[in-house]
């Protein structure tokens, strides 16, 4: 504290927030206010119910003007939440916003401390640390940078499609990257959507076509993100266009190549039909695919396996679209904002052996049934067992892989509703007896509960109980040849054995297996379950902690189509709002070199991850290019002569903060 520079009289104002009872319920505010008022340089110390509210901010602004305060400390929540708010208030009152420091006495004190006395002591220490630190703060200027107006959207499911269209319609350029050969995602596989039972492809296909035809959308299918560089407003993105061996520009989707393939019949599991039908090595994923173009799977194509195929597909293509020599291609694009909409994966039920998936052929995953009931699916919409029989009784098991600490703890949110939908469709197509086994029926949504009632009227048996096992173990003659579901009917309190022909496992939603790679590429965070983490669960649901990167749809957590679209459009709006600012102000926490102290030792140069530091041969000193500096401070910590310094994180500021914190 003795080292304060002589830049005029220092007048600190301290403001302690109650945050309703969030802080005041644990911390003795009066004591902290009293304590703060006695700290050095403190002119005024006040409390208020909600500092972030208008009257709270007014209090600060008035004091700045009337008491000539030139340093402000607010002790309230995390700076990640309201630092911005209070800096703005300082600025409004004519004080440089960087003469401000925040003490986090909510997240780091009142919410994590049981004893009131301890919490009060800790709050005092945090306030002291902030006051000691703010004394060393100085006025700083923000630098601004231009924002690239293009937007990258990762993932071409309903979330990515919706976000792309909103952004593109506003006149901005969109790069939409999808890793499958067609956009459409999971929704393209569904027949009907709950609770309205409107046809999924009737509402999705027009949107897919719009994407294809939109002048502002550049579509990259069968492509993945390779590298992301840069920061908000100026991202450089490398996209790997995987070789599809069919030129999308030339292909018209006439199927001639597929008919000509040396395989007369499909032989390999069809991914789009969840393996319920077979495809050839050259195929079009589904008739409404966008782009409507064939793709060759090199893992099954004879030409790629042996090099000795007749290449009848190539000969059949009049437009010469097939190119066996095609290679992966890297395309680099520049964008100002990124929307991540990478979706989810369905739970693999073979992880629960007692449900018999993979062992009993009439145990299905729900997504397989979506294909079975789909009129463009492998059976033309007929619900039949693998041996061709029509099931007379069907059991639908909810919460498979969800709400279970042995697998995934979360509720997948969509399973109750899609199970009801499948129950309806199966009943409609087969007139079978349908049993739904649920733990809790979760139908919060517009028209959802009504749909549940409709199903009850239709005569579906609703049995409350988590199924213990599905077996082929027959005890009675009626059970022979059937799958037996054993469950406690918890509403009656009796264990039941129910023989059925078909079992449907309502599998839950999981993060994509490679979500972690996307997370690293974009420098965003995941929740511990693996879903992408939003900046704030309520107030910033589509932002991330990395500026300029937004998230939409099920990659953030399980959600249904309406919620996904709402979030996608919100993410698009956020991205547009960012881009339309044209310029972005950067946090002035960059480093610089004190030329007089620099000995030219080179230590910092090798450390900088952004190559922002160079050596000036003439003056024999290091020089930092502040446009490249991102403000990590690694060079500062390493500089042996203290020549490197970082704004907002000056050594003196941190020393003072540490001293103050150790009350």
């Amino acid at each position: 504290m003795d080292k304060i520079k002589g830049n005029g009289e220092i007048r600190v104002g301290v403001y302690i927030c109650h945050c309703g009872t969030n802080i005041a319920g644990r911390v003795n505010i009066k004591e902290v206010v009293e304590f703060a008022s006695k700290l050095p340089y403190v002119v005024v110390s006040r409390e208020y119910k909600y500092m972030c509210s208008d009257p709270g901010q007014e209090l600060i602004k008035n004091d700045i003007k009337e008491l000539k305060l030139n340093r402000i400390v607010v002790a309230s929540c995390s700076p990640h939440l309201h630092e911005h708010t209070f800096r703005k208030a300082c600025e409004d009152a004519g004080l440089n916003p960087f003469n401000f420091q925040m003490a986090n006495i909510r997240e780091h004190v009142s919410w994590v401390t049981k004893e009131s006395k301890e919490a009060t002591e800790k709050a005092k220490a945090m306030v002291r640390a902030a006051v000691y630190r703010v004394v060393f703060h100085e006025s700083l200027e923000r630098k601004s940078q231009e924002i690239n107006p293009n937007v990258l959207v990762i993932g071409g499911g309903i979330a990515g499609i919706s976000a792309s269209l909103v952004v593109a319609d506003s006149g901005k350029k969109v790069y939409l990257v999808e890793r499958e050969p067609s956009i459409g995602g999971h929704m393209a596989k569904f027949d009907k959507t709950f609770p309205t039972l409107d046809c999924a492809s009737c509402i999705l296909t027009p949107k897919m076509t719009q994407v294809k035809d939109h002048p502002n959308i550049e579509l990259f299918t069968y492509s993945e993100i390779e590298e992301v560089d840069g920061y908000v407003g100026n991202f450089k993105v490398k996209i790997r266009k995987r070789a599809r061996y069919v030129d999308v520009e030339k292909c018209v989707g006439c199927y001639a190549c597929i008919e000509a393939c040396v395989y007369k019949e499909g032989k390999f599991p069809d991914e789009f039909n969840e393996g319920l039908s077979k495809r050839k090595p050259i195929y079009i994923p589904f008739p409404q695919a966008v782009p409507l173009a064939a793709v060759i799977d090199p893992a099954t194509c004879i030409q790629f396996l042996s090099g000795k195929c007749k290449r009848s597909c190539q000969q059949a293509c009049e437009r010469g679209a097939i190119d066996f020599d095609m290679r992966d291609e890297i395309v680099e694009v520049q964008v100002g904002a990124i929307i991540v909409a990478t979706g989810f994966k369905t739970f693999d039920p073979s992880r629960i052996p007692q449900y018999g998936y993979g062992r009993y052929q009439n145990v299905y995953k729900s997504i397989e049934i979506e294909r079975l009931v789909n009129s463009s699916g492998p059976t033309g919409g007929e619900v039949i067992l693998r041996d061709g029989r029509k099931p007379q009784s069907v059991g639908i098991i909810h919460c498979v892989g969800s709400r279970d600490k042995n697998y995934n703890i979360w509720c997948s949110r969509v399973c109750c509703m899609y199970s009801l939908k499948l129950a309806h469709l199966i009943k409609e197509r087969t007139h079978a007896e349908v049993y739904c086994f649920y733990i809790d029926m979760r139908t919060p949504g517009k028209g959802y509960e009504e749909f549940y009632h409709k199903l009850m009227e239709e005569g579906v048996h609703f049995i409350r109980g988590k199924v213990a096992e599905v077996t082929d173990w027959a005890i009675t003659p009626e059970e022979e040849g059937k799958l037996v579901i054993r469950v406690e009917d918890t509403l009656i309190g009796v264990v039941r054995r129910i023989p059925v022909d078909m079992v449907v496992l309502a599998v839950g939603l999981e993060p994509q297996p490679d979500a972690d790679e996307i997370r690293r590429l974009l420098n965003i965070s995941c929740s511990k379950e693996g879903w992408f983490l939003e900046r704030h669960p309520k107030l910033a649901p589509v932002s991330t902690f990395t500026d300029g990167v937004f998230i939409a749809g099920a990659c953030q957590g399980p959600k249904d189509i309406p919620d996904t679209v709402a979030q996608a459009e919100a993410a698009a709006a956020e991205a547009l709002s960012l881009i339309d600012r044209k310029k972005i102000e950067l946090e002035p926490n960059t480093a610089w070199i004190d030329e007089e102290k620099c000995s030219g030792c080179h230590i910092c140069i090798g450390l900088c991850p952004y190559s922002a530091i160079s050596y000036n041969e003439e003056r024999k000193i290091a020089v930092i290019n502040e446009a490249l500096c991102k403000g990590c401070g690694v060079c500062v910590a390493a500089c042996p002569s203290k020549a490197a310094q970082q704004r907002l994180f000056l050594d003196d500021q941190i020393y003072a903060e540490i001293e103050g914190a150790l009350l």
Partner: protein
Amino acid sequence: MKDNKFEPKILGIFCNWCTYLAADLAGVSRMDYPSNIRIVRTMCSGRVDPQFVLWGFKNGADGILIGGCHPGDCHYIEGNYKTLRRYLILKRILREMGINEKRLRLEWISASEGEKLQRVVREFTEEIRNLGPISEDRAFKLQLAEHKK
């Protein structure tokens, strides 16, 4: 406080992007932990100058916890690797100085690991509580002895 046991002072220096956010998350999730820790924020754990640590001990910290992003997850590409290198050297220096090296700990705690933060702070506080005040370490005893002369 409880049982008149020694209550250590603990300084936490957390990076802005991972561990500081984990502490925020622990708060939002109401995961309580001992109040001994005082948290100071730097943008990257790579900003932690070894002198911060020494300054902390000098100013009465009985234990110092540095928190950074997991290897490979650093917001600034590889600042945390530099932290690790410095940390290892710093531990040796502390040993030489006669300060128990257990008083300094480095942990990788990501933004989603509120639970880990709680666990680490609990463990570390307990460990330091058992070690006793830093003034009982050799370095400080020597200093005190010097002083008396």
